[in-house]
């Protein structure tokens, strides 16, 4: 077995392990931590697959932005166990796990065919650069998928506006009063 395969299997095992822990740990912060680890491992997997740019984006966006947001909200709420709820009962958990396992089996049956068992091809040039490099991806993205790219931008903008609307609260009266009084004092200080 080559080193790449060893790496793949160890990464795969760790990804699955961390995914399981994301699903099974009761506290959100633990789930989030395991998910961050999962994302790092997935980024490693992407490097193995040759998609370097995707791998960096995985770290930059998923681990660096999205998960930070999660951790930030978890910190902000600073929940104790009473506030994030009790655990599901064993029957429900086992039912869900069973269905999950069944789904995995059926999905795997779909792809466990001889023609999908052949090895992945070697990486080659795609014209703009090596496969998976930033040049190659951006050429395709901005040539063939420019509408998708623009729509993604619009979606992000909409999400930004929506989140702003959802999260905005008028500052409570007291805080505003304090703010104005400080500025007043400052003015007074300046005058005298």
């Amino acid at each position, binding site marked *: 077995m080559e080193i790449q395969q060893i790496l793949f299997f160890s990464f795969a095992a760790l990804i699955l392990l961390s995914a399981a822990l994301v699903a099974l740990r009761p506290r959100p*912060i633990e789930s989030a*931590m395991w998910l*961050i680890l999962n994302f790092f491992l997935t980024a490693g997997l992407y490097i193995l697959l040759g998609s*370097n*740019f995707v791998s*960096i*984006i995985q*770290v*930059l966006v998923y*681990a*660096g*932005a999205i*998960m*930070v*947001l999660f*951790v*930030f909200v*978890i*910190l*902000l709420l*600073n929940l104790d166990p009473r506030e994030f709820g009790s655990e599901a009962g064993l029957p429900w958990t086992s039912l869900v796990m069973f269905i999950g396992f069944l789904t995995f089996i059926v999905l795997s049956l779909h792809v466990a065919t001889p023609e999908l068992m052949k090895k992945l091809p070697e990486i080659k040039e795609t014209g703009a650069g090596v496969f998976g*490099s*930033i040049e190659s991806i951006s050429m395709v993205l901005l040539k063939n998928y420019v509408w998708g790219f623009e729509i993604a931008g619009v979606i992000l903008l909409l999400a930004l506006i929506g989140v702003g609307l959802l999260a905005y609260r008028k500052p409570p009266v007291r805080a505003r009063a304090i703010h104005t009084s400080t500025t007043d004092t400052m003015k007074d200080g300046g005058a005298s």
Partner: protein
Amino acid sequence: MNETMIAWAFFAGKILLLFGLAFGFIAPIMVWVERRVCALIQDRYGPNRVGPLGLLQTLADGIKLLLKEDLRPNEVRPWFFILAPIICVIPATMAFAVIPFGPPTTLGGLFAEPKRLQIAELNAGFLYVLAIGSLGVYSIALAGWASNNKFSVLGSLRASAQMISYELAAGLALVSVVLLSGSVDLVKIVESQTYLWNIFPGFLAFLIFLPAIFAETNRTPFDLPEAEAELVVGYHTEYSGMKFGLFFLAEYVNMTTVSALAVLMFFGGWEFLPFLPWKDVGVDVNGLIPLFGGFSLPAVIIPFSWFAAKVAFFMFLFVWVRWTVPRFRYDQLMSLGWKTLIPLGIFNIILTTAVIVFHRMS
């Protein structure tokens, strides 16, 4: 020695050099520099007892931290409390991996091809630094949360919000530099500014980038997360001993990283002066410098030292600013980030793009 072994030795040498410098030299020196400069600015002596000029003060401090009892308050969340300082150091160290510290060189003919003086020869180094740099926030968040202390939580909340916000500003500023250089490879970015440093066309970007890196590293005037007067010391209130030492270390390593980044992105990296690169002065980075007794050093030592000097200047700038500029208020910090730097950054990108497109067309 066959070539493989040379390659491995080169690789190990790069790691040793960089991390040795970072942990064994820069951090201790910086602690000393900080205290001495502080004292200088405040018109007092500073540490001057241990060793010559108090240079060994940091060593003594380090020994003290290592030998101190590992205190763990009762109410903390145990795993995360220990995890936080560890994952504080990891990203700081990882970011170092792609920082090139000299021009690609054959080390005086040791190699047939010029080799990069960079641990991980990643061609998307700039993105990598950004990606890894954005991870530092986890340790702070975790540290605050795990301490189970109101001040700590507040501190880490502030830190998270601040770092997320200013990361955007820094990223936007750097994007315009990438546009100017036409690459995300740090070595190529430096090579693109052999004559014209990016600080000249990208001055606006630098103006955005500078406050952003101060905020990124939680340094004054943006050290809100550890504002002593308000939050005791914020997220590491509950930490002591070497766990605190790790936070401390990471801070200086981060400072080094962003300083190096600033030098690489804006100040021509290891090049000599604007419009006057080493090769025009007559320094061949692949050559050798003869020393006494038949010994010789690779000439690459000269640009490397020059690069280190530039980084050192930025580190000094950090210290200098810390002891001269007062702290921002939190809402001022946020409005500076979101209402000034980010719009300015977007405007800068549009402007840069327009200028580049116009330049290409004409």
